[in-house]
């Protein structure tokens, strides 16, 4: 059976050119960049080169503003905790949103225990952050605003430029989690006015276990991890050079290929959404119709539940995701779907397809061919389905 992968927000395949770029750093250029000998010099070159590529991808002024971490979760932890530790004498107020990744939300909850005040901004039904609420919450006590560039679960892209302008009317810093956006939209930290940016490697076809934090020059940040003083004392621990080289290569490829890739994905996404909503009654789009990640098809279907749809898709060789409680570790439906105002039963009926490089129009057509039958079959079984929709069970 043909296997089709449409869960790129959860994990991406590593580009083969990235793997090639990583290989030398396992057993050829294996020196520790902190040493003095020639092995170390070569390693250091690789480190600088990767830093440069990531700086170029996100429009940083200098490569010294890029710090490698173990991934987006560490970057988010570091941005919030590191800044709070340095700025706590200036103020003890942090603003974030109700649709952030758990690596922001749970850090913020931890900060509340540490004596900080945290405001969680509401979003509208499309998942766009309420800018008026941001203006109202922002005070002279606010030290940090942390808002994601785009939400991977509903695809909505946030108005970061406007957010930045509002945040910088006060003396606060802006942290942006770009994990879901990095491989999908052109980022420019300077143009957008971003002080701290979380960059993930796996979300741009790089390896897992490596990420970066962009720290705009002059932004006060205490280290999270202490030790031998790597990353100019800001992030200790021997550098994960194969990972760093891979992430650097992924960034280079992304910079060159993003535009073309993006256009292809948008075409597939728009067809996917249009045909799905047309062919299946009581189906709806989650997230914003146009301010949307190019690869994101987040939908929901009334009267049925997400996991049973996923199992049916899996039986036909298609791997996707859902915001449903039953697929997660907790019983609550996704906080993001609840934040955009969906009722529990609506959230339970959600499905998430996230496309990637290797998906073709044939793949999309195949899934579009499957979905009406899957939905029909489950609706025929559901006690919630209205009479006029009931068909026979096969």
């Amino acid at each position, binding site marked *: 059976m043909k296997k089709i992968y449409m869960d790129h927000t959860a994990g991406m395949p590593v580009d083969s050119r990235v793997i090639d770029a990583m290989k030398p750093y396992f057993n050829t250029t294996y020196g520790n960049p902190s040493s003095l000998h020639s092995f170390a010099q070569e390693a250091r070159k690789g480190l600088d080169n990767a830093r440069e590529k990531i700086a170029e991808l996100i429009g940083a002024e200098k490569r010294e503003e890029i710090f490698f971490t173990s991934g987006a979760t560490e970057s988010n932890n570091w941005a919030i905790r590191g800044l709070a530790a340095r700025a706590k004498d200036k103020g003890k107020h942090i603003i974030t949103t109700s649709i952030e990744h758990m690596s922001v939300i749970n850090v913020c909850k931890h900060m509340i225990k540490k004596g900080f005040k945290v405001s969680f901004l509401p979003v509208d039904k499309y998942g766009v952050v309420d800018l008026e609420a941001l203006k109202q919450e922002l005070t002279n006590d606010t030290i940090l605003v942390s808002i994601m560039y785009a939400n991977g679960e509903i695809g909505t892209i946030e108005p970061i430029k406007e957010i930045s302008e509002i945040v910088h009317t006060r003396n606060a810093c802006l942290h942006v989690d770009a994990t879901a956006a990095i491989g999908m939209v052109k980022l420019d930290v300077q143009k957008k006015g971003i002080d701290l940016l979380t960059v993930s490697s796996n979300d741009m076809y790089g390896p897992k276990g490596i990420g970066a934090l962009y720290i705009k020059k002059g932004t006060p940040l205490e280290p999270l991890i202490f030790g031998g003083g790597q990353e100019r004392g800001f992030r200790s621990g021997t550098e994960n050079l194969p990972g760093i080289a891979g992430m650097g290569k992924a960034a280079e490829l992304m910079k060159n290929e993003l535009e073309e890739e993006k256009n292809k994905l948008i075409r597939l996404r728009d067809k996917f959404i249009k045909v799905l909503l047309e062919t299946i009654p009581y189906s709806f789009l989650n997230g914003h119709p146009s301010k949307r990640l190019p690869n994101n098809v987040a939908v929901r279907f009334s009267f049925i*539940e997400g996991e049973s749809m996923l199992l049916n898709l899996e039986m036909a060789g298609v791997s996707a995701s859902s915001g449903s409680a*039953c697929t997660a570790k907790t019983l609550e439906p996704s906080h993001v779907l609840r934040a955009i105002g969906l009722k*529990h039963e609506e959230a339970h009926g959600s499905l998430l397809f996230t496309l990637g490089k290797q998906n073709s129009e044939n793949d999309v057509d195949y899934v579009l061919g499957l979905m009406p039958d899957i939905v029909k079959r489950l609706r*025929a*079984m*559901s*006690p*919630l389905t209205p009479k006029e929709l009931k068909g026979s*069970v096969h």
Partner: protein
Amino acid sequence: MYTEKVMDHFRNPRNVGEIPDADGVGTVGNPVCGDMMTIFIKVKENRIVDIKFKTFGCGAAVATSSMITELAKEKPLDEAMKITRNDVADSLGGLPPIKMHCSNLAADALHEAIKDFEKKMRGNKK
């Protein structure tokens, strides 16, 4: 995540549907929790002669519903009343721990259907 037996019942659920002139109907769960099921029974001489279900929910919810209809069919009411959630899970070769609580509602739905039948019988006698 699921046993082959669960997947079998999910792929080919037994006894899906409604019994329009059911002698007893039991509904448990609710869509807010993500799982809801209704069991319909037909009773003759204190024995379940027909049973059908309708379920909104995850794979485990569908499979447990299907399994309970097999376990209860042709059983005397007092025996059917004794079928437990664990019996259903065991017959399916086990369920993931998180599903034991939220989606393993079929035994409750069956018990509700039997109670509904008994209530109706008492009503008729009066």
